[in-house]
């Protein structure tokens, strides 16, 4: 065994709070050898990010206290003067972060930003730095690198920006790279490409890598060894293979059990609830499938025909738009009472715009939407109001979907009062009952949203729309922001409600594993169009369209034995749905691969 590059011993980090020092990292120890990848995995609040910030000494020394020992090639980082530490950051240890959208300076070209690192650490001259920058951008596989040196960050897509960040991190040839959720904000196919790139770069340079993530699938994909953290404690350390095959700690087993696995639904006829997992004991209690809730003989509760939504962009000399974003292009589908149809696809594919157009939160350009007898696009104000009682929406971000200035009671009661379904007193009583139904306590009525966790807030948002007794709920990435165990619980709640009230869900998500679990049918969207739609078992079991196949392949599998074969496809910039003015979309034809399984013909 080679000497470790980074050695962390009994790392303890405490933050100052009004009640005194609170430990958020409690005695964490691990090593990273040169050329090795160690993953720290845990849910939000587990202390994984604080661990990396402590190693880099990026925490405010007044409000944070770091104890234990951190050594890099034998040098004790915790006792180093700040001046010396500054040389270590960026030079010996580099870091990449989650948000490629905000971690680059929008005012400078990417060439200049990468070049600055080179000139700072190597003292390279201007021309020298420029050549080296181009080489670096080539190394992180940015297509046409030399020509893009003078482009600004906004001219790059999210995945390309993350490559720029990686190029910056590699500029000083660090010995250790700390990657804090570097792929979390990226689409799944882009995530696959970035993980691939990191592995290759590591092989080339032999640097050590500390990889922080909440995603067990990513861990299985990339890490040699894994540190599992739970509420500040390191509960388990071991080789990734061992952690996945026979984790010792109940929490590790719970985390793995709660993780939805793509492909696990083969042979299941109906949507299946997630197992109930106890994180304390690690005991797993399987939950039953959702009973058949769909009545296909009845008229669909929602029927969308040839929906088109475009947004004009740009303007020429005469103020006319120069083009349009074809966000939704000729989308058609039916949704039956008690059915879950998932709209899947990557960011910018138009799935959210589809959901919003159906609820008239965005005005569609053309098409026909029949929702429980309402001709949605032709509704006057009064009928629109009645329509809103039938169709409701749950949003993605539990931190921005509730009004912070209204109590939970007000929030849940408001729709019922607005629609005159109940007076104030009655609405409040019903709100209490609804909170109970979604697994919260009626005693929480007078609390404000900030006192709740993300999962609880999402339950409040669900209770709010339930008050109207809607027939259709559009759930826009409603569980994407939640931790795995919480995600499983909220998905189970949605399934319970479907069984109980025959609600039809339009479930918009990029998370293929959750979609597989919850859906009756699945529609795959790409650049505003549905490329494939059909029963869940058909789309997941026998995908037909190349894009569907690519999407399914890219999903990381939480099984280190099934690590992906190297992708050979060159990274591509995502095609844009912006079209010039007067553009007529080509006619599309669908073929029926099986009963109800439609696939767009490719040319």
């Amino acid at each position, binding site marked *: 065994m080679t000497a470790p590059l980074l050695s962390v011993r009994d790392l303890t980090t405490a933050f100052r709070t009004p009640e005194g020092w609170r430990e958020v990292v409690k005695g964490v120890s691990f090593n990273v050898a040169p050329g090795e990848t160690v993953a720290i995995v845990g849910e939000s609040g587990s202390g994984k990010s604080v661990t990396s910030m402590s190693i880099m000494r990026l925490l405010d020394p007044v409000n944070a206290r770091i104890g234990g020992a951190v050594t890099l090639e034998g040098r004790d980082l915790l006792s180093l003067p700040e001046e010396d530490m500054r040389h270590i950051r960026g030079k010996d240890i580099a870091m990449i972060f989650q948000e490629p959208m905000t971690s680059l300076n929008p005012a400078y070209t990417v060439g200049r930003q990468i070049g600055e690192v080179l000139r700072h650490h190597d003292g390279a001259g201007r021309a020298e730095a420029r050549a080296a920058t181009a080489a670096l951008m080539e190394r992180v596989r940015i297509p046409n690198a030399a020509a893009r040196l003078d482009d600004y960050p906004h001219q790059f897509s999210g995945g390309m920006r993350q490559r720029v960040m990686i190029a910056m991190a590699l500029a000083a040839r660090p010995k250790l790279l700390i990657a804090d959720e570097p792929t979390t904000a990226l689409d799944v196919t882009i995530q696959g490409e970035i993980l691939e790139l990191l592995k290759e770069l590591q092989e080339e340079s032999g640097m050590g890598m500390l990889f922080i993530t909440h995603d067990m699938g990513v861990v299985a994909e990339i890490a040699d060894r894994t540190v599992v953290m739970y509420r500040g404690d390191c509960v388990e350390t071991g080789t990734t293979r061992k952690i996945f095959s026979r984790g010792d700690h109940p929490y590790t087993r719970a985390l793995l059990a709660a993780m939805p696995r793509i492909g696990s639904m083969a042979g299941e006829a109906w949507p299946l609830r997630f197992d109930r997992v106890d994180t304390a004991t690690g005991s797993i209690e399987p939950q039953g499938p959702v009973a058949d809730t769909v009545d296909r003989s009845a008229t669909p509760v929602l029927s969308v025909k040839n929906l088109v939504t475009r947004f004009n962009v740009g303007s020429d000399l005469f103020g006319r738009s120069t083009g349009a974003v074809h966000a939704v292009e000729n989308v058609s589908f039916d949704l039956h009472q008690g059915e879950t149809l998932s709209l899947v696809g990557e960011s910018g594919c138009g799935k959210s715009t589809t959901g919003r157009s159906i609820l008239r939160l965005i005005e569609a350009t053309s098409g026909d939407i029949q929702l429980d007898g309402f001709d949605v696009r032709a509704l006057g104000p009064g009928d*629109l*109001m009645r329509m809103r009682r039938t169709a409701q929406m749950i949003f993605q971000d539990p931190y921005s*979907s509730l009004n*912070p200035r*209204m109590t939970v009671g007000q929030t849940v009661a408001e729709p019922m009062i607005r629609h005159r379904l109940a007076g104030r007193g009655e609405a409040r009583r019903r709100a209490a009952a609804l909170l109970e139904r979604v697994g919260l306590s009626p005693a929480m009525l*007078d609390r404000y949203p900030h006192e709740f966790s993300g999962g609880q807030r999402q339950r409040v948002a669900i209770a709010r729309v339930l008050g109207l007794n809607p027939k259709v709920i559009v759930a826009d990435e409603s569980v994407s922001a939640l931790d795995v165990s919480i995600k499983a619980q909220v998905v189970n709640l949605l399934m319970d409600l479907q069984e109980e009230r025959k609600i039809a869900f339009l479930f918009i998500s990029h998370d293929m594993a959750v979609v597989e679990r919850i859906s009756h049918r699945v529609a795959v969207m790409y650049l505003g169009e549905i490329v494939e739609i059909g029963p869940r078992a058909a789309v997941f079991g026998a995908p037909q369209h190349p894009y569907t196949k690519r999407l399914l392949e890219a999903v990381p599998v939480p099984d280190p034995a099934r690590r992906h074969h190297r992708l050979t496809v060159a990274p591509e910039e995502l095609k844009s749905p912006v079209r010039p003015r007067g553009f007529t979309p080509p006619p599309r034809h669908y073929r029926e691969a099986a009963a109800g399984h439609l696939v767009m013909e490719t040319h």
Partner: protein
Amino acid sequence: MSVAAEGLAPRARSRAWGKFRRSPAALVGLAIVGFFGLLALAAPLLPIADPLATSWTAIRQAPSAAHWLGTDELGRDILSRMVWGARASLAAGVVSVAIALATGVPIGLLAGYFGGFTDMAISRFTDALLAMPFLITAIALAAFLGPSLMNAMIAIGLSAMPIFIRLTRGQVMAVKKEDYIEGARAIGLGHVAIMTRYVLPNIVPPLIVQATLTVATSIIAEASLSFLGLGQQAPAPSWGSMLNVAKNFLSQAPWMALWPGLAIFFVVMGFNILGDGLRDALDPREH
């Protein structure tokens, strides 16, 4: 179930008051503002000299037992002028800001909420107003309305309005991106309900801070106007006009400038601390 049929708002209000009461800083602010406010209200009842009575034998006297704060260039008692002047100055500060808030916030709300042509029209108008210096606008408006304290307050309020339009507009545009606004539309709430219940409460903190700062600017603006004969009409006192006269006698009678200067300083500080306290008390997220 024991939950009463009472409305939900009163609870939120009593919670805010409870939090306000527990903040020592906010109480100090309230005490300072309250002290000056009471002084102004009680002016006719206090055993002090006539603020307008001149005395040629007691010109520019330093503070003494007879005149606790000294006398001014016409031999008037500064203490009593300070007390009576508090009325004009506090009114100038509070009423002007109230006018600026009452006009600026709704206009900014409309601009930020509806966007498009409404926003463009309002924003161009605001830009034009902001291009004119605050004081010049106030002087021009006051001259147009005619010299009186009330007109001065209206003039100052309208001159301060564009700042509130712009601040409100910007804040509304930020809040409008939040999912809860779209959620409110999805449950069928109308524009008025969304603006008053969802947007306005969430933009209050920066407005309070700006308002307390503008109180200070307004007190000083009133001083400038009264110096030009457009604000408080001489010989009636206001702190601003006292300060303006006093600057001619800084070396001979520094106390003439000291007292109104200190009073303005404390009132402004009082409003600032009070504003901070209010902001925290009204925010359910703060503890």
